[in-house]
């Protein structure tokens, strides 16, 4: 139980007024970001990252992760009250949340959403607390070939398991990896793909790209839609909260199932969006009367919210233990770690114990504080939507510009941000996924270094990726996942012939 002692130490690090205030500020900003259309978890974190440049890493990560929790909480508010999912992962929450609000049970639905978010995160944080140290100590034995194999596994699973057209995922990923290589080569010091431009010498900054891809492009996309909205106001009374909590034990199967789905999809790059839908659908399938779903059933709020939060939180597990983010937002937090001079990966648990356990402790505290905060302040946040988008849009643009400029104090980055904004807008509209791009851009250099180091070590022999049982099985798994659709098709065919034979005979 070494983890427990370290966790308690983490709490001790956190329980200062300064950190608690930062936590509250982060949560409020995060809920803000989650409620506003045209802003979401990833871009909120990316835009607000510059605020943390002057802080010490622990305070910075506490604030940023609280922005993330806040955004996760905030998405539910607009889904339930306005039938507008503030985030893609809260789409499933609207199915039953909005009907509940229409029946005058908005307070109940909101309490259910916040409580299940809390439960989902809690399960995921427990998982991180006990699993992350084990995985990272195991990963300490990894050499460059093992790391490259793990990166390969991440990339291949995106291609093989993603729901988008495969060639689009490949385009997005190879573009990200290529752009990560622009600038000075880290191994030889030679310049690559700069075409003599001194601005490109620095390379393409990951955070600048993210601010453009998610922030600017989201504004352009939001403007395409009709922005009129009508919604219910709600205030939550203690009586309603206690009423919902009293009924919680009845739904333990749903909560448990959704937490499990969420954790699983969060660690593998399936993501919160898939998790919330899967949680909802399974709750519906296993229900005694599936007909009543979609008409304002409280389980229809519990199931997707628990899954979305469990997934959003557990996405931080591979980031902490291996240095591989499980979601877009985790990728941005990883970018933050590098800005503060921390090297993500298994060594983090050895070299920066305070930081890691401070972060894990802040997940517990942030979720408790967040739950209390959203339950008490929902009316305030709901009324943010009264502010017309014509006022919000330019403010978001300004925040994006501040964020992009502050990273390297370069005017060129403003233009880069604008360019990526257009790219993001077009990519989203023609169905090229942005998550693989983000992941590739942040992992590109590390993946290349791992590849080149293993190649140097083996004298250029690709067999090094099958040189021992561990690296061999990871590499093989990666290749299996890459061709999974083909293999799946073949298996189905074999299964089909096997089933058809007795029928024919």
């Amino acid at each position, binding site marked *: 139980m070494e983890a427990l002692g370290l966790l308690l130490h983490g709490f001790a690090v956190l329980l200062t007024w300064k950190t608690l205030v930062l936590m509250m500020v982060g949560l409020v900003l995060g809920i803000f970001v989650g409620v506003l259309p045209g802003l979401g978890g990833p871009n909120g974190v990316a835009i607000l990252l510059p605020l943390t440049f002057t802080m010490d890493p622990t305070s910075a990560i506490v604030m940023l992760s609280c922005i993330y929790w806040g955004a996760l909480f905030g998405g539910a508010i607009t889904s339930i009250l306005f039938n507008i999912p503030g985030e893609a992962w809260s789409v499933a929450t609207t199915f039953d949340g909005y009907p509940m609000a229409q029946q005058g049970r908005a307070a109940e639905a909101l309490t259910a959403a916040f409580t299940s978010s809390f439960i989902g995160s809690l399960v995921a944080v427990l998982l991180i607390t006990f699993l992350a140290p084990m995985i990272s100590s195991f990963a300490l034995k990894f050499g460059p070939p093992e790391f490259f194999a793990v990166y390969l596994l991440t990339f291949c699973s995106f291609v093989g398991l993603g729901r988008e057209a495969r060639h689009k995922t490949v385009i997005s990923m190879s573009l990200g990896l290529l752009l990560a290589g622009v600038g000075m080569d880290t191994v030889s010091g030679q310049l690559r793909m700069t075409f003599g431009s001194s601005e490109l010498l620095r390379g393409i900054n990951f955070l600048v790209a993210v601010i453009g891809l998610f922030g600017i492009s989201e504004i*352009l996309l939001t403007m395409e839609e009709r922005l009129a909205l009508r919604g219910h106001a709600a205030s939550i009374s203690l009586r309603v909260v206690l009423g919902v909590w009293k009924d919680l034990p009845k739904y333990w199967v749903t909560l448990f199932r959704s937490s499990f789905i969420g954790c699983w999809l969060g660690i593998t790059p399936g993501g919160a969006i898939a998790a919330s839908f899967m949680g909802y659908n399974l709750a519906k399938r296993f229900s005694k009367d599936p007909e009543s779903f979609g008409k304002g059933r409280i389980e229809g709020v519990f199931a997707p919210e628990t899954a979305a939060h469990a997934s959003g939180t557990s996405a931080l597990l591979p980031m902490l233990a291996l240095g591989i983010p499980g979601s877009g937002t985790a990728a941005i937090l990883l970018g933050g770690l590098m800005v503060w001079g921390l090297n993500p990966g298994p060594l983090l648990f050895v070299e920066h114990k305070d930081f890691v356990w401070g972060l894990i402790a802040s997940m517990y505290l942030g979720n408790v504080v967040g739950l209390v905060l959203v339950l008490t302040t929902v009316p305030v946040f709901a009324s943010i939507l009264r502010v017309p988008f014509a*006022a919000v849009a330019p403010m978001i643009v300004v925040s994006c510009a501040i964020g992009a*400029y502050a990273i390297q104090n370069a005017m060129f980055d403003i233009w880069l941000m604008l360019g990526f904004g257009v790219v993001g807008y077009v990519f989203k509209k023609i169905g090229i996924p942005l998550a693989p791009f983000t992941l590739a851009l942040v992992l590109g250099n590390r993946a290349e270094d791992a590849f080149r180091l293993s190649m140097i070590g083996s004298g250029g022999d690709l067999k090094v990726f099958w040189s021992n049982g561990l690296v061999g099985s990871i590499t093989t798994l990666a290749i299996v996942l890459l061709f999974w659709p083909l293999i799946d098709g073949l298996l189905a065919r074999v299964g089909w012939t096997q089933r058809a034979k007795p029928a024919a005979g």
Partner: protein
Amino acid sequence: MSQTDLEIVVDDPTAPEDDSPSVVSTGTIEIVVCLLLLALAITLGYDNWRTGASWDSTGPEPGYFPFYLSVILGGGSLYGLIAALLAHRAASATFVTRAQARRVMAVFVPTLLFCLAMQFLGLYVASFLLIAGFMRLVGKIALWKSLLTAFLFTAIMFVTFDIAFDVIMPKGPLEAALGR
């Protein structure tokens, strides 16, 4: 507890009409994007090949990894191009309607002007102009509200970044005149 307790209502006076004609189809944009990506892949691939994409005594040369990525990117976009060309013969979905394009331009053009203005006027003055102008001209919000909101937001940003957190933003003649 009736169904009509709607308490928050926000209207959108300049919303795009639903029956607006299509400007360009998704298929066409896909073809254009794939062509651009293909051109990018060839350019980057050539540059990396020039840098050195083979092996020397110390291992792979700097261009090795990105060269093969350019090949993958080129392959992906070529596949996308062919797929889009084949699908193009069938009816294609609308990429953007005229009304939508107008709205998107209503944000994009001011943003572009904002980035330009920032080079000369500094970030804070440009922000003030962007917010006030956008609220007044695109949102049709009363002038005094627009000016006040823009001023307050810019002031808060200035205090937060420049004074509290020491994050230095580009500044122009106004800040110089005020001695900051």
